[in-house]
């Protein structure tokens, strides 16, 4: 499987086009329709229909075990990795149905990157962490690879911190730096969407704030879907919030509304109780 790589300039042009388009129209980047997830026959999430707007940050909130992470994983088919996990329903991205068996998942996951709760850089050097996936996706030109690496590290604000020690082990970085490296690693593949599963929850407050600021900056170029347990964080960074809840051991989507509305004028009883801290 080979990916088409386009030049930087083309990317930048495409990006600015997208930005111009995105602001007024709220173009849909990802559309999930009737997603139901079962683990070995036991339903974990039922019938979620959710549209994710391009160049916005969508936060998925709700108590533990209500299927937020499962839903997030279904958006780039990371659910394929879990034995016994079955996803029904459709997710549309750029006119393709992600859950079609013939979808090229390797290419899909370049377009829809994922960041995990615990930073997971590989036990390689900083450079190799970014370089290896690029090589595997067919970017054979070393100069182009270097350019991509520099650009991605600059985007996450890590370039000035690591440019003199690119060949040192990535695991020697601090937790916050490791998480930014993981984000850079995903960005180097030039995705349009980033899925983040509680990206700050394993970090100390200061690193967490740095990553949070980074996520806000990413909105300019990328669509971000972020699972968070931190209501304050959702309020600070998200454009819209989707609240998940569970009933009889099975998760479902309560509502998906703009952040202002959910925090200041919640209508739904569950939402009100959760936001005010009375439940969850």
């Amino acid at each position, binding site marked *: 499987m080979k990916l088409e790589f386009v030049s930087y300039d083309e990317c930048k042009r495409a990006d600015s086009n997208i930005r111009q388009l995105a602001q007024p129209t709220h173009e849909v980047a990802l559309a999930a329709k009737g997603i139901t997830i079962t683990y070995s026959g036991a339903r974990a999430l039922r019938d979620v229909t959710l549209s994710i707007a391009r160049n916005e940050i969508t936060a998925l909130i709700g108590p533990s075990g209500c299927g937020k992470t499962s839903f997030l994983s279904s958006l780039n088919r*990371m659910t394929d*990795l879990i034995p016994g996990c079955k996803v029904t329903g459709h997710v549309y991205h750029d006119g393709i149905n992600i859950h079609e068996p013939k979808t090229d998942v*390797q290419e*899909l996951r370049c377009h829809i990157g*994922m960041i995990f709760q*615990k930073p997971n850089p590989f036990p390689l050097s900083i450079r190799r962490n970014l370089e290896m*996936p690029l090589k*595997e*996706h067919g970017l054979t030109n070393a100069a182009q690879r270097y350019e991509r690496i520099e650009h991605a590290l600059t985007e996450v604000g890590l370039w000035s911190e690591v440019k003199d020690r690119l060949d040192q082990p990535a695991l020697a970085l601090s937790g916050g730096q490791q998480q930014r490296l993981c984000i850079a690693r995903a960005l180097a593949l030039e995705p349009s969407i980033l899925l983040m599963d509680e990206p700050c929850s394993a970090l100390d407050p200061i690193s967490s704030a740095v990553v949070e600021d980074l996520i806000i900056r990413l909105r300019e170029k990328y669509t971000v879907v972020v699972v968070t347990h931190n209501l304050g964080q959702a309020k600070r960074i998200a454009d819209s919030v989707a609240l998940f809840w569970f009933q009889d051991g099975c998760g479902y989507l309560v509502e998906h509304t703009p952040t202002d509305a959910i925090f200041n004028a919640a209508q739904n009883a569950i939402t009100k109780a959760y936001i005010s801290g009375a439940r969850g």
Partner: protein
Amino acid sequence: MISSKSSFSFLWRNDKILGRVLWASACLSTALLILIAMFLVKESWPVLTSIGITRFITDAGWYPLEKLFGLAPMLGATVIVSTLAVLIAAPLGIASAIFCSFIAPRRIAQAYRSLIALLAGIPSVAYGLWGLTVLVPLIGQFQPPGASLLAASLILSLMILPTIALTTDAAISTVPKSYLQGATALGLTREATIIKVILPAARASIGAGILLAAARALGETMAVLMVAGNVVQFPTSLFDPMRTLTANMALEMAYATGDHRASLFVSGLMLTAIVMALATLAWRLSGGRVHG
């Protein structure tokens, strides 16, 4: 064996006694090891002082009754046969561990693991017998006599394959699942994930397992003795018969006396030193996790 709970329960009530028992057993095993090493040194001492260590390497041949003590051909044969065995067994063992961890369905993987563990339990003389009756005649058809370096390396590789397969399998299972997740999320194929992420992450422990297997190959006696032909010479082709240090000891100890006997102990001392060095290296590679 613990025969009944009550008779030993005092150990848990009284930490001091448990501590002493454990100290005593630790000292006993260490003492045994030191005693064996001292015994080897003591028995080889007369010849080491009268002839000197260098002549064991420089002497023109192994004619102990004529006072020629050249161990070099046998030392060379031992190292070559072990190296070949590792070169054959390591790729197969690693491949089998990858199959077990990533390709095979869970049930087949479990059955396969038990099979490999069983393979590790077959006595070496049984491998030797099979080699003698099947492999040696087979090689002999192409290139007589059949008993050869090739036969010995193949039998040895079969014997150390389980060690490499099992240690590699264990090494792979200690690689954090988050690496697998991370690689998958970056759109890497299964092959790239295994080769570029999982194996590099496990390489220290895999290396330690291979070194342990090499140590076992160096020390293996019976099976090699049965298929190697036992001619004292430096093997120059795969089909040459050859004799290893261990086989030499087993063959000659029964009738050796005086300097001849002592020089057999010298070969024992050499082997012990090589194996210990390999085991130490393995232990350091794995950060002290592998038990030799």
